[in-house]
């Protein structure tokens, strides 16, 4: 499903003393199968934008198209089928759990969407494996699990409706390095194996660089930059002006180019490979 924003404005509480324009004339396109990342600091309009993708909010003016769905200022009755196709993992999704057992919580979505429950139940073991949980958690209360496990249950509850688009709002917030790595590789495999469109909101520029193929930068409700992450991060100064940084490895490469004239480029190498590149460039420079 392709996602297109055309001149979207959004204003909270319009025509009141508290009115606040959160999105200003946003136009963008996310192709099917993209891994798009949204960056911008708190209050830049990221969350507001995300909520347009499954019709939690509707534009004050302009149009959002998600596949065949069209969201405008008018009310759309097909919203439920849209929500089934666009899964959203909110920040700290473990806070949305409420059922007595993990199984019932995961099946909450399918039930609401009126899906075939037998079929959904059959899928449970596969989904659990995908998110990295043992099947014996199904009959346990979600509240007995660790924070990291609870988050996986919440993600499973979104995946089970088989969405085409998966939106994740800071899915690694509060996790330790191991937990972070696991969630990021889970998202990677959903993107590659299931060809899901991924939309990630994150503060970790490193993750944007390593995983996404499209980056959108928001600042004060406006879309200020977009493109491939490597290109976007080339404009270090512009990003700094709006209070954002670039990934550390790119910072290092820039500094080494400027200070030492080392001809190093970023081509998705791992940190230790980058170290190797630097070492080789140094040796080459020394031999010259």
């Amino acid at each position: 499903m392709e996602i297109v924003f055309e001149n979207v404005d959004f204003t909270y509480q319009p025509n009141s003393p508290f009115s606040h324009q959160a999105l200003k004339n946003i136009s963008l396109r996310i192709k099917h199968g993209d891994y798009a990342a949204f960056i911008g600091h708190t209050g830049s309009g990221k969350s507001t934008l995300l909520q347009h993708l499954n019709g939690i909010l509707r534009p004050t003016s302009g149009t959002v198209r998600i596949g065949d769905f069209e969201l405008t200022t008018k009310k759309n009755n097909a919203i439920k089928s849209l929500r089934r196709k666009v899964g959203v993992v909110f920040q700290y999704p473990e806070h949305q759990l409420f059922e007595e057992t993990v199984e019932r919580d995961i099946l909450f979505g399918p039930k609401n969407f009126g899906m075939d429950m037998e079929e959904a139940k059959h899928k449970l073991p596969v989904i659990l494996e995908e998110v990295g949980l043992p099947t014996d958690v199904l009959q346990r209360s979600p509240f007995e699990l660790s924070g990291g496990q609870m988050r996986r249950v919440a993600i499973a509850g979104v995946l089970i409706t088989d969405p085409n688009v998966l939106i994740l709002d800071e899915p690694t917030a509060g996790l330790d390095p191991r937990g972070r790595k696991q969630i990021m590789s889970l998202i990677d495999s959903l993107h590659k194996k299931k060809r899901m469109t991924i939309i990630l909101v994150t503060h970790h520029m490193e993750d944007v660089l390593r995983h996404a193929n499209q980056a959108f930068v928001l600042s004060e409700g406006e879309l200020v930059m977009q493109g491939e992450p490597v290109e976007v991060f080339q404009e270090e100064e512009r990003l700094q002006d709006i209070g954002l940084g670039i990934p550390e490895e790119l910072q290092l490469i820039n500094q080494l180019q400027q200070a030492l004239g080392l001809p190093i480029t970023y081509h998705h190498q791992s940190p230790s490979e980058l170290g190797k590149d630097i070492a080789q460039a140094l040796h080459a420079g020394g031999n010259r």
Partner: protein
Amino acid sequence: MNQSFIIGQYVPKESPVHALDARTKLIIVFFYVLVTFSAETLSSYLILFLFAACGAIVSRVHPLFIVKGLRPIWFIIILTFILHLFIQRQGEVLFTVFGYAIYDQAVIQAAIISSRLFLLILMTTLLTLTTTPISITDAVETLLKPLKSLKLPIHELALMMSISLRFIPTLIEETDKISKAQASRGIDFQTGRWRDRLKAIFALLIPLFISAFKRAEDLAMAMEARGYRGDYGRTKFRELKFTSLDLIVFLLFIIIVIGFFYFNG
């Protein structure tokens, strides 16, 4: 995104009414309410109304806020008026509506009762518009202090009130977040059979309670780490100041009350 939500309906302004000690305002409102209930003549109502109106003007709060504060109860005031109009059957018949006689005493009674209501609401609205909820809490705590000797947990009650005030915006934000998350999982809070809607409310309330309990637990630990051990050896940072302004307002109020009883016969 819930910045627009203002607890109580406090409107920050610099005015003599705002500057008054919250205790003064509470006591005056309390006695004002008592006195209003014994008002019977037109002139005594006029005095009470003048007092409240002066307060409203001096407070520099925009009249619209006061009208807005009164909005939910306009309906009740008007309803009370109409009910009394039809129920009272004393005095002379003034005129008939749809074959129903309206008596002159009924008009007077209806006017009295609804004016009473109006004045009560006006005065309490003025209190909340010009006093922060936390100052009201402080005032309640100090005024009720004598009850401590009766082993009533006054300090704890006041602390509970102030922590509730502190966490209202947090919990509203949380409710918003959870309802959005559940809506994304296909829940519909507005339509559907009543059973489904009940389920929807559970899907909202259970996570909300769990998170509130977690917050309470965290907060209790943070308070303990900062040496909180109840009322024991505790001093207070916020202070209520009784100034000469309060004294003047009190004297003024006493004069008003004396005048009131004079005209009330």
